[in-house]
């Protein structure tokens, strides 16, 4: 199995697939990514994204993509297939579940953010996306590639699920936030790793509220 780090070393540039039905947003995200030294492919829908990746059922398992995709950034609200549905399809595919997926949305709805993170999204960016957001995502990707963070992340996610299924003595597993102002439950292990970014992002969103 190819490790993300090896891919990065050989191609030296992250190849990002950006998915958004808005023409304006595709243009902006493309620029943000190019300025951050990425190769960019933009597509207008989840269906096109899957085709590009080669997940199109009609075309078989390997489509016409010449370059490996290192990161997918997708809008949430799109006609046809939403970003959430695209995320699920990617995370449930053995070939592509390793690719980090970032969701972008103009609406910071807590349940929406939760569902996306639960399904395996790396981050949830609130639109309009800024250069600082993109740079942070890039840094995460590079760090993950170098330190095999993917394996770490999977372990932590499983641990988090185990904590939830375990006896309810742990307070973190029993509290579900009912209002936007309460912090989300997270097991100590996830909080200690790359999830501080999630906490930061959630903190940011609370401030915006």
């Amino acid at each position: 199995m190819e490790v993300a780090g090896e891919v990065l070393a050989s191609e030296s540039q992250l190849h990002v697939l950006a998915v958004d039905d808005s023409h304006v947003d595709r243009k902006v995200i493309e620029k943000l990514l190019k300025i951050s030294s990425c190769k960019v492919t933009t597509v207008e829908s989840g269906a096109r994204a899957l085709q590009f990746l080669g997940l199109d059922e009609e075309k078989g398992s390997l489509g016409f993509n010449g370059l490996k995709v290192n990161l997918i950034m997708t809008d949430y609200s799109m006609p046809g297939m939403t970003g959430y549905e695209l995320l699920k399809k990617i995370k449930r595919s053995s070939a592509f579940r390793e690719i980090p997926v970032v969701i972008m949305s103009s609406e910071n709805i807590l349940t929406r953010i939760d569902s996306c993170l639960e399904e395996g999204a790396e981050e949830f960016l609130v639109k309009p996306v800024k250069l600082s957001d993109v740079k942070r995502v890039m840094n995460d990707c590079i760090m993950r590639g170098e330190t095999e963070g993917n394996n770490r992340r999977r372990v932590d996610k499983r641990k988090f699920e185990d904590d939830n299924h375990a006896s309810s003595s742990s307070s973190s597993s029993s509290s579900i936030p009912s209002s936007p102002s309460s912090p989300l439950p997270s097991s100590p292990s996830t909080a200690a790793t790359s999830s501080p970014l999630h906490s930061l992002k959630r903190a940011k969103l609370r401030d915006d509220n």
Partner: protein
Amino acid sequence: MEVGQMQRRLVDYTKSLFMEGFLDAQFLQLQQLQDESNPDFVVEVVSLFFDDSEKLLNDLTMALDQPNVDFKKVDAHVHQLKGSSSSIGAQRVKNACIAFRSFCEEQNIDATLRCLQQVKQEYYLVKNKLETMLRLEQQIVAAGGSIPMIELGF
């Protein structure tokens, strides 16, 4: 008019657009993304915004003109317009869209018609302002000057 004067005029004009709320920080972000490799970036994005918006406003006009208004469809169009105006920093258009969406939720036909007028007004205003600003920029560049970067103190 010499270049220095034109540059000052541009800076004053651009600053007024921010002060009056036509544009917000996201527009500044776009300007900062422009560089020598892509000197027309802002013009291109703004043009896309104009094209998208005009289509959406037409779609909205038609959708609200139906005997049985499909508010879900109307809301979907407004959501798109809100998104693109937010992405380029057209703050007043975005805010008008936010108000519009709340009336869509209420399925209030009179209010939504008023909102459409409001959004159209804000759109044409910002379109006019942006075109003026971009024209000023073009004149400076044509005269051999460079576009001054706006620093916002607030």
